[in-house]
């Protein structure tokens, strides 16, 4: 059997990040990617938070093909007939170094694959890994078509479904209650139009999230991220909710209904849809993160359950890149000691625990079941918008005092036992 130092299953951000770290140190590393090119099978909302990973591979990011730095954050709470938008225009976010950028994966991942190859790493595209090869419980390599290839260590970056690793018993199969599905259109618009519609200066970007009637009470929401000359417009919906309640509507129709809303139409008017994509998203949180390493292998990125939906911040790519980096560091150290057993690779989990990756996931431990509450997607967006509408209404009748309008609205929709209990639950997140 042909053998290399390290095989990486999957050429997405986690796998390529690991490959970059290893190739930079002269290891013989082989990334196997099933798409025609890296990024061909990947989808993001999306936005990459660069702040947590800026110091990982600091030389890389200057030349990265980011779309726009996000300087405006918008959240729209959608009720029936009225919605309320909170728009944050922050000088801090508008000033370099920018904390986050909108990205398109086919561009970003291909660029990172090029960087890996410049360091001497091999990125083999158009090949599907069919099986992980195990011997006495140790991962010793992979099978791709007719070829068996061995490695001291295999880094499994096969993506969110974890088909190979769950088949090999290294993690469990994905469950609907721990996942959401996202689907989106890329809608082309001229840069000047994008900037006008989201109040941006030249080159700046916005992230716009929508909660409420857009998912009809199901866990999830709508999103728009502004790219250079297009927007990413899509829906995320919890799979368990969709499976249980979705009979009311085909999933894909949620996006069409979103596009037809009168508040969305002017944002996308004149745009041309050029691509439609879909991807699963892990949202089970740290409680369901699998064992991250074992004899001869490490799990990274989505395969390791490293993603986080905290409602207004949605992360995964920063965790993917960081986990790839720490996987590479671990392999380099294990190689020094010549020990690729589970004990020799245990440092991987320790370094994730002392980094932002597992710290942030630990902080967010209670989020997955807290945001399960359908009232977050029905009652509250509705109540906030109704209250705002009352505040701004002048009718034929003599007006009430502003304070009594506010107090009346708050009393009706927020001062009750259910909300109080939900507030107590919210304190945990």
């Amino acid at each position, binding site marked *: 059997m042909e053998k290399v130092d390290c095989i990486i299953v999957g050429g997405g951000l986690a796998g390529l990040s690991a490959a970059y770290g290893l190739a930079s140190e002269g290891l013989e590393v082989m990334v196997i990617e*099933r*798409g*025609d*090119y890296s*990024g*061909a*099978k*990947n*989808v*993001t909302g999306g936005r990459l938070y660069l702040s947590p990973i800026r110091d990982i591979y600091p030389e890389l990011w200057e030349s990265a093909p980011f779309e726009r730095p996000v300087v405006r954050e918008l959240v729209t709470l959608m009720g029936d007939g009225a919605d309320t938008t909170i728009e944050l225009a922050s000088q801090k976010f508008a000033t370099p170094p920018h904390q986050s950028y909108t990205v*398109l*994966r*086919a*561009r970003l*991942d291909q660029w990172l694959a090029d960087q890996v190859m410049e360091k001497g790493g091999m990125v083999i*595209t*158009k*090949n*599907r890994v069919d099986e992980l090869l195990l011997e006495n419980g140790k991962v010793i390599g992979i099978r*791709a*078509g007719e070829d068996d290839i061995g490695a001291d260590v295999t880094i499994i970056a096969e993506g*969110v*479904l974890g*088909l190979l690793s769950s088949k090999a018993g290294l993690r469990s199969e*994905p*469950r*609907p209650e721990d*996942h959401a*599905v996202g*689907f989106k*259109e*890329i809608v082309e618009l001229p840069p000047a139009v994008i900037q006008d519609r989201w109040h941006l200066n030249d080159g700046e970007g916005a992230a716009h999230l929508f909660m409420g009637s857009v998912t009809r009470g199901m866990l999830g929401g709508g999103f728009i991220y502004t790219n250079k000359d*297009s927007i990413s417009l899509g829906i995320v919906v919890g*799979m368990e909710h*969709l*499976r*249980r309640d*979705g*009979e009311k*509507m*085909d*999933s*894909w129709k949620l996006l*069409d209904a979103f*596009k*037809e809303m009168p508040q969305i*139409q002017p944002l*996308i*008017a004149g*745009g041309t*849809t*050029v*691509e*439609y*994509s*879909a*991807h*699963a998203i892990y949202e089970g949180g740290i409680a369901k993160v699998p064992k991250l390493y074992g004899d001869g292998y490490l799990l990274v990125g989505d395969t390791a359950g490293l993603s986080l939906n905290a409602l207004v911040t949605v992360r995964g790519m920063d965790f993917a890149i960081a986990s790839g980096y720490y996987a590479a560091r671990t392999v380099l150290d294990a190689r020094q000691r010549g020990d690729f057993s589970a004990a020799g690779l245990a440092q991987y989990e320790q370094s994730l625990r002392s980094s932002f990756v597992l710290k942030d996931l630990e902080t967010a431990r209670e989020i997955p079941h807290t945001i399960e509450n359908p009232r977050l997607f029905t009652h509250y967006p509705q109540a906030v918008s109704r209250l705002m509408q009352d505040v701004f209404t002048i009718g034929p009748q003599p007006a009430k005092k502003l304070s009594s309008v506010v107090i009346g609205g708050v009393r009706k929709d927020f001062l009750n036992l259910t909300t109080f209990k939900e507030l107590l639950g919210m304190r945990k997140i």
Partner: protein
Amino acid sequence: MSMSIEAKLGLDVFKIDKERHITIDTEKCRTVCTIKACLWVCPANLYEVDDQGNHTVNYEGCLECGTCLISCDHRALEWHYPRGEYGVQYRMG
């Protein structure tokens, strides 16, 4: 601006393999499954029931998200990724 789902899929690049990457155990769909979630969860709307009452999937337009696989309670789907260089190839992602 509204488009049919078929028109949306028509915008994507697919390299279609003659080998199917999804097969359905239609017996399970008929006998054990009560909710038939595959019919509405798929964001590409690829699942249908034919005249004989068998579940079918138009695997050629698959976006490879895995939602059907994860949502199927009865393991009625044999689902793997298309072979290397086949299936959807996103140009943007």
